[in-house]
């Protein structure tokens, strides 16, 4: 799924004559590292995005040799999608997925438009609990907990959401403006891919699995890995487990 398949994206003649020129460009090291770390480079990234537009024709075959696709989306962003084992990849955790989908929903909401794509964390939390219900939200974000104290559970949800936001910001889905405000970026539309066209959601999911965009399942591995990193295990006893 490269630029040829992305449909609707502008066809631009490459501004670079050779791969050597592309690599010699001052943007290459930073953009290359960002893409390999999973970052979505969008129009908001300014010259880095322009560089990718110009260098796309040369970079696509370059990254294909590493077993991954440089994908350009019509919404105005690029990302690297590993299809083999040559480049590391990871699946987003449950927290990242829930927060990402909710932010995508907010991105589509005209109310967000009034503030130029800025939303408050508090509004996000309200929206999350409104969409899923508090109990489902708590259980989805803490699948291994059986008993919940309301105060501790709320605290834990906030902490999981904050962690998810930090990771989504690293991946270029959002910008963290300050402690309160988030700026939504077009890359969030990746979370809406399964429902973007009018086909059956299940068929769309299968198509995305086939193209290596998503994996189906619980994603316990990623959550376990994140928990093992020691971000949130400190209050296990307090949770009464």
């Amino acid at each position, binding site marked *: 799924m490269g630029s040829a398949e992305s449909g609707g994206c502008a066809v631009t003649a490459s501004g670079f004559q050779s791969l050597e020129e592309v690599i010699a460009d001052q943007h290459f090291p930073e953009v290359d590292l960002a893409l390999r770390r999973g970052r979505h480079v969008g129009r908001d990234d300014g010259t880095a995005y322009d560089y990718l537009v110009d260098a796309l024709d040369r970079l696509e075959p370059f990254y294909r040799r590493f077993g991954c696709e440089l994908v350009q989306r019509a919404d105005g962003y690029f990302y690297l999608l590993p299809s083999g084992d040559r480049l590391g990849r*990871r*699946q987003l955790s449950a927290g990242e*997925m829930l927060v990402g989908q909710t932010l995508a929903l907010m991105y589509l909401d005209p109310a967000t*438009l009034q503030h130029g794509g800025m939303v408050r964390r508090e509004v996000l939390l309200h929206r999350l609990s409104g*969409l899923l219900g508090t109990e489902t939200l708590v259980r989805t974000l803490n699948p291994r907990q059986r008993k919940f104290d309301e105060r501790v559970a709320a605290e834990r949800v906030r902490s999981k959401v904050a962690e998810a936001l930090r990771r989504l910001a690293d991946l270029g889905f959002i910008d963290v403006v300050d402690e309160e405000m988030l700026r939504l970026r077009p890359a969030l539309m990746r979370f*809406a891919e399964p429902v973007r066209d009018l086909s059956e959601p299940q068929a769309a999911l299968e198509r995305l699995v086939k193209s290596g965009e998503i994996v189906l399942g619980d994603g316990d591995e990623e959550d376990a890995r994140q928990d093992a990193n020691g971000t949130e295990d400190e209050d296990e006893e307090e949770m009464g487990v």
Partner: protein
Amino acid sequence: MPSDSSRLIAALARDRINLDLKTLDLCFLAGLYLRADRAALASFEEDVLIDMFEQICDVVDPGAERPRKRATHAIQRLRDQRMLARVDGAGIVRSGEYTLTRLAAAVVEYFLADEALTRESLTLLTGTLRAQLAEILAAARRADTEDSWRERVVAPLRVTVGDLVGGIERRQRGLDSQQEEVQAEIANLLQADWFGAVARCQSLLDTTTDTLRELNEVLLRDTHHFVALLQEIQALASDAEQAESDEAVQRVIEHVDRIAAWGGARQRAWSDYYQYVHRYLRDVVRLDPDRALSQRLRDQVASWPSARFHLLVAAAPSIRLLRPLESRVERPPVARPRTDREAPPDLVDPENAGLAIENLVAQALAAGAESLAEVTERVLPKFPPHQHYVMTGRVADVLARVTRMRSTYERSWRPVEPNLELEDWDLPRAGDAR
């Protein structure tokens, strides 16, 4: 915060300044303001106030009982809050005459006046401002006395120019709030009509963009002229050593800079917003004319816990930088050099100032000193300057022990040295000593 501002704010807090205006009060004030404006009234008789209040009551609260009594309370409430001022000074001799205060006028103007910046109003204001500055420059060239500088340069700069620049700023704030309204309107239009609102949204965006661009052009061109004129006035003031004029010009220059900066900042901010909305209209609204995507995504989020999928992203680890190889070295144990921490005490001269003071005080008394100050003046020169303060206390102590003091109820302060004063005691005459 500068100390002046802090003092002013502290004074406001001390006076417990507050405003409590109900809708009826505001409508009453607005009615009075409009009446004064149409009939060119400078003040209102009490009957007119009550009559106006009753009319407002009919509109705002038709079923209200005893409107005259309510009018009396409302007038008192507004007087307490410095919204209405009695101007006749007749006290209880006859019914009063009232006028709206500056505060009331400002509040009403905020709600009534449509003072957004337009190309016409800005061009008019900047034209007047330029003519005024040219006049002040001519006056500055002719000014030859302190008074003429003050009357023909400082005063017009502070009042006329200040008002004109303030007028532009006020209208800029008006345009700011108009922009916020446009942003809210675009959101509401899309919320209500989605795809059908695209053309209207585009037109709103374009209109505001054009307005901002025009205003910024006028501001860029005219503020350049203002600053040139002001700098010329400032140079003349500086040559004539007129610090007050210099300061007044500087203040206006800063004000003008602020106005110019507003234009650029708003245009940049609007440009970001414009691009964002434009992308939204193109990528979200036009591609999803039935607004079905939001609903499908909402369903997807709600059902995600039971039908999970996860996005995949690249996650290449950072490049590992190996440390340069070095052979194993024997590191010496951490230790601290031993030192002898028992230092011998310093030898200092014994302090026998106490004994010396008693002798010196006795000598001063014998020499005829008649007050504490006189004794102190005689004793202090015998000691190094850094001990004078301490010695002054000791002299008083010794004197209190060897003689009986006399003191008036208000003891007078007397200098004994350029930087030292004490409350004086009189000493008894000869033969009174203990």
